[in-house]
């Protein structure tokens, strides 16, 4: 029985997605759960998995096309099945080129005639080429990949519109858009000399870097849109608390001594668990505002901001209050790895109820984060630093970390936020609680 695969809805606000690449071609087998295509949403490039076992009989959209969510994108059928597309897709559904079989029929002329009829015939074939497949020679594919050219933007001049080396070269020569590489600045090495002998330069050393204009990628644009929306519409307030990190760092050291290299835990993993446990006590901060209602989420799903090329993604550790620190650590590591490689999965970035942003690794004392709608709060972590602290009237060294909570004032108030940060101290400063 043939089934229709549709553009999945991967976010609260996702209305459409771009079909970037078909991983499984027409006529190829696909197993349920196998990656069928790559699509780009506002947030990321994600892999779409087939929801059925069978053969991909037809791509309903070509690579590069923007498709509304829930629209059909492909048909998967049993091997050898005769698919009735009309019945399956209905009148309104996008149909592909029925001309494909016709093109095959007019092909293969007698050798003697081939030379004369070739040129016009090629044009005809080009027009009837089925959408969904970009025909390109292996060499052209490699050149396009090296030059970061989107093949669907290149016009093919070969048989059946196949893109060849010549077309890629012509495309590159035409100055068509490719991601620009920064011009290498000449390296000027100055001879080592005592500072006093260094003459004041009379002119700038070396030419200035040339100005560049870089179009916003989808991710950058989406971050901008959401952050403007959050900053303009969500009334933020901010609370900063300083935590004693001594015991937690000690515990982490002890735990890591027992773990193999690839399983070692980070400070972030412990804070994530501590936050999740504290949120259990403060369901109003694990919430979303929806019109005139506040939804207090049952699950505690913590989003962790991950810096990726060209922007920022939030990977989601689900049910973090009910997981071991080691589980949390492994999950976050895996998901953030995928995020950095551009291979993030829909589940990785969807469904967070509270977020943490950590810039501790950059030696940041403290910062304030913008709430990630529709969540009600976000926690910003600075570095754990060794600082002088007063203990029993004495100045002694101690490990401290500042955390700043940003809260949506429509959902909660200062006192609740402050109590939450105090509750968090219980877990951070007595970290054995995290292990119970």
């Amino acid at each position: 029985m043939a089934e229709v695969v549709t553009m999945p809805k991967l976010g609260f606000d996702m209305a459409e997605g771009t079909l970037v690449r078909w991983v499984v071609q027409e006529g190829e087998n696909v197993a349920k759960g196998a990656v069928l295509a790559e699509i780009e949403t506002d947030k990321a490039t994600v892999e779409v998995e087939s929801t059925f076992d069978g053969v991909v009989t037809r791509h309903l959209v070509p690579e590069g096309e923007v498709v509304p969510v829930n629209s059909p994108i492909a048909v998967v059928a049993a091997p050898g099945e005769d698919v009735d597309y009309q019945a399956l897709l209905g009148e309104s559904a996008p149909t592909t080129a029925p001309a494909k079989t016709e093109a095959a029929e007019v092909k293969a002329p007698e050798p003697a005639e081939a030379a004369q009829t070739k040129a016009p015939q090629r044009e005809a074939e080009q027009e009837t080429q089925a959408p969904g497949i970009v025909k390109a020679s292996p060499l052209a594919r490699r050149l396009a990949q090296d030059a970061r050219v989107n093949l669907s933007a290149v016009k093919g001049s070969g048989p059946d519109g196949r893109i060849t080396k010549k077309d890629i070269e012509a495309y590159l020569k035409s100055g068509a858009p490719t991601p620009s590489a920064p011009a290498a600045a000449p390296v000027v090495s100055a001879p080592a000399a005592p500072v006093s002998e260094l003459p004041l330069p009379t002119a700038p050393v070396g030419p200035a870097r040339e100005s560049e204009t870089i179009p916003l990628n989808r991710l950058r644009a989406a971050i901008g849109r959401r952050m403007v929306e959050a900053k303009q519409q969500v009334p933020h307030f901010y609370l900063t608390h300083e935590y004693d990190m001594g015991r937690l760092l000690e515990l982490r050291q002890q735990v890591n001594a027992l773990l193999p290299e690839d399983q070692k835990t980070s400070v972030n993993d412990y804070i994530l668990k501590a936050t999740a446990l504290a949120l259990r006590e403060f369901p109003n901060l694990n919430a979303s505002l929806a019109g005139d209602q506040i939804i207090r989420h049952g699950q505690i799903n913590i989003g962790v901001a991950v810096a990726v090329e060209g922007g920022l993604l939030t990977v989601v550790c689900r049910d973090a209050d009910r997981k071991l620190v080691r589980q949390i650590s492994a999950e976050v590591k895996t998901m953030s790895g995928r995020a950095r490689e551009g291979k993030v999965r829909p589940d990785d970035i969807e469904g967070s109820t509270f977020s943490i942003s950590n810039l501790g690794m950059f030696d940041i004392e403290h910062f304030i984060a913008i709430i990630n709608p529709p969540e009600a709060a976000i926690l910003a972590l600075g570095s754990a630093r060794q600082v002088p602290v007063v203990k029993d009237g004495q100045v002694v060294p101690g490990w401290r970390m500042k955390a700043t909570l940003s809260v949506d004032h429509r959902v909660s108030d200062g006192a609740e936020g402050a109590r939450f940060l105090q509750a968090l101290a219980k877990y951070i400063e007595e970290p054995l609680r995290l292990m119970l």
Partner: protein
Amino acid sequence: MARITMREAISQAIWEEMERDPNVFILGEEVGVWGGTYAVTKGFYDHFGPERVRDTPISEAAIIGAAIGAALSGLRPIAELMTINFAFSAMDHIVNEAAKLHYMFNGQFVIPMVIRVVSGGGRQLGATHSQTPDAVFAHFPGLKVVAPGTPEDAKGLLKTAIRSNDPIMFIEHATLYQVRGEVPEGDYTVPIGVSKIQRPGRDVTIVTYSKMLEISTKAADQLSQEGIEAEIVDLRSLRPLDMGPILESFKKTNRAVIVEEGWRSYGVGSEVAARVYEEAFDYVDAPIQRVAQKEVPLPYNRTLEQMALPQVDDVIRAVKEVL
């Protein structure tokens, strides 16, 4: 450099090797008194005598069987079969014995034997005497298959074959004996299993061998007048097959046409094309074209025979198809 025919080059190679090594001898139908069906061994009988130039009964199985026995006992036979088509009568000896004895007796024996055969069509000899089944013999491990396209290569390769301890099918083309070419003076050899760029070019790689080198060269001359420069790689040996120069050339041109006289299915072109796809996939810019004999028994009628055999125009058309 002397300019001599393919026939003279082959004849010189055998003569010089017989002078050089008393263990080398010839056997075959009409090789002695008559001087060979294609006159390659003319004068040998008078010079080397009946002991070393032996006329045989009309039995290919007997010729190859006797040659294998002689090789096993330390001689270096050169067995001549009038055409490669008759090798089928000796197939069991060639494939099951010559190709395998060294292996099956764990290297205790070697078979220093050359089987000279005449292959190819174009002389109106009919369907059973005009075949080009070179690829059939190249199928078997244990057998080396050599098929030169120039007098220089023919002489050098045949000398290497006679000195080699392996059983070797040495394939001469029926219509190349009159072809002249420059041949180095004195004793020289050409290694077996090394293909060669016979003509440099930048636009397309033509892979070919034997008679089809001549056809491909004519095609390349015509293409050159249109500004298309074909690079021609001559296989020279079908087994071992040397892909080096082919891949090197293909990585430069990204396009290839393989020209062989035998049938297309399961042929030399199939093998070479598959190897290019395997080993240079990322350099492929167009599907590789194969030019080969039409898949029919070769007709006797002259016009039909020429239509079935690959011609210069076929090569030109295939080159334009890949460009």
